[in-house]
């Protein structure tokens, strides 16, 4: 199928490169990426607002590269990157009048749009949004809609666009998909999207109840078979650093009101290795963990928004 509005590649299609080393050692004998952080340690987040002047609000977010990726960058040996770090840009356009054809709305009409760059993931993404990208857009919309005071802008629209320049992996590159496998990387992307969009909304001076931030927690087991006991709770997981993720949860959280605007839990959370006096069920521990991660992101978010306001005050 050719797309007349884009430049197409060879009609016969192309195949991604296959590395000989991968073919020989499917077990992943090469150095696995290992988590160097404590289970409750979060990655550093780089968040900056106002980089795109033509938008009403904008932000750029980057996660700190994992220890293995940083090592691979400092001393490159292999062409296969051990893991990747999230990089995304967010713009907010509006509030602006709705198009003529739209029906009346007493509230601000929120449109969210998440798109991966074709080179964002290990596998080349298409130019047209696929199901997972639409899914992310819907999740993001629910997360933000709970925070925005929409009735202040009747008959107006607000476009939020996120461009994922580099996404997180779903698993370590050498591993074959297993029974627990799902697109775990997507959850990290969503958490990043929520935090970045929140910063961009503040940069655009859109009234919100609170700064909503995203956080991820997961139950991981370091053994494929699960024989090494129940899975542990880990905050801010990088899926490439773990053998197997049993369950993961992403929340959009507003600390000032202690409210969750979006919750997305995936996998089997019935078993969890918690401390002995901890009687919470697995999913509750998981959600609490994600909230803790979101609180961590919130401090970065607050700082970025303070910078954004200092800039506005300074220029006025």
């Amino acid at each position, binding site marked *: 199928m050719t797309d*007349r*509005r*884009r*430049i*197409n590649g060879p009609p016969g299609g192309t195949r991604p490169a296959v590395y000989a080393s991968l073919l020989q050692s499917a077990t992943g004998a090469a150095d696995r990426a290992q988590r160097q952080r404590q289970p409750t340690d979060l990655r550093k987040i780089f968040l900056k607002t106002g980089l795109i002047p033509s938008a009403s609000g904008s932000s750029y977010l980057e996660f700190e590269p994992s220890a293995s990726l940083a090592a691979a960058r400092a001393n490159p040996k292999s062409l296969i990157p051990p893991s990747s770090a999230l990089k995304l840009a967010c713009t907010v356009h509006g509030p602006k009048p709705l198009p*003529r054809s739209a029906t009346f709305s007493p509230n601000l009409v929120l449109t969210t749009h998440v798109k991966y760059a074709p080179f964002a993931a290990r596998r080349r993404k298409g130019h047209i949004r696929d199901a997972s990208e639409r899914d992310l857009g819907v999740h993001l919309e629910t997360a933000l809609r709970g925070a925005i005071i929409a009735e202040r802008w009747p008959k107006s629209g607000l476009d939020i666009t996120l461009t994922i320049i580099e996404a997180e992996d779903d698993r370590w590159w050498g591993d074959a998909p297993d029974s627990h496998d799902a697109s775990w990387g997507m959850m990290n992307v969503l958490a990043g999207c929520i935090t970045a969009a929140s910063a961009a909304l503040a940069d655009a001076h859109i009234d919100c109840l609170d700064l909503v931030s995203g956080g991820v927690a997961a139950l991981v087991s370091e053994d494929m078979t699960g024989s090494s006991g129940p899975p542990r709770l880990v905050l801010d997981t990088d899926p490439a650093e773990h053998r197997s993720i049993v369950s993961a949860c992403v929340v959009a959280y507003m600390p000032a009101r202690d409210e969750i605007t979006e919750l997305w839990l995936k996998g089997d959370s019935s078993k969890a290795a918690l401390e002995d006096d901890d009687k919470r069920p697995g999913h509750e521990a998981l959600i609490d963990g994600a909230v803790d991660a979101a609180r961590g992101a919130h401090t970065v978010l607050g700082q970025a928004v303070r910078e954004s306001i200092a800039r506005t005050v300074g220029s006025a």
Partner: protein
Amino acid sequence: MVGPTASISNLNRADGSASFKCPTTGYDVLGAVNAPIELPTRRDALKPEEATVEVFVKPGTTTAGVGERYIEGILRSVLGKVVLGREKGFPRRGVVITLAIVGGGNVERGDSYLTILPALLHTSLLALLSASVPLSMTFAATTLGVTISNEIIRDVSPRGAKAAASLHALAFSSKGHLLLNESQGRFDFEIWEAVREQALFICQGAAVPSADGDVAMDEEADRTHLDGFIRETVEDQIHSEYNWKVDSV
């Protein structure tokens, strides 16, 4: 050398139309102009004090692609400047030019569109004249190729374009302004100036506009340069349209 052929007002339903055929390059373009017309779907894009010029290019055997969008952009910017869009009846309306490439080779993916540019420009000019759209000037265009041995060749065919070291499409207004220049390949400025001189000669012949704005016309030179060709085509058309009047006198 066989010169181009053209005819005007060959479509009944359009406000103006023209076809232009260039035997050396093999291109045959049919163009239609509708102006001024309402563009209800483009209400937001319309300018309050000027007409909006829209150009559509349809290749002969395939659907339009990325390259056509590019060539449409160039045509729009050239013609938008020539059309007097502020005349009465034109502001907030559209001038829609549709050009169909009827004959000639297809331009392949990522190939140069410069060879077909003159044919498209001439067709749109004649169609605009046929639709009586007010224009500030007429123009003529040509494509020249420069071979590796710095020889300038006229009316490059698509195949010749592949072998050329550089390709240049130029358009000159009837008053000698450089309206358009598209050059690609490897060349230096001296070569380009030689090309410009040659192109100016092809478009206008030796005729130099005199001070009062009139062009000194020489019947002999008429056939050889493109400006004269355009003028003659329009004259012929007017002559045939007013035949009844001439006869009755």
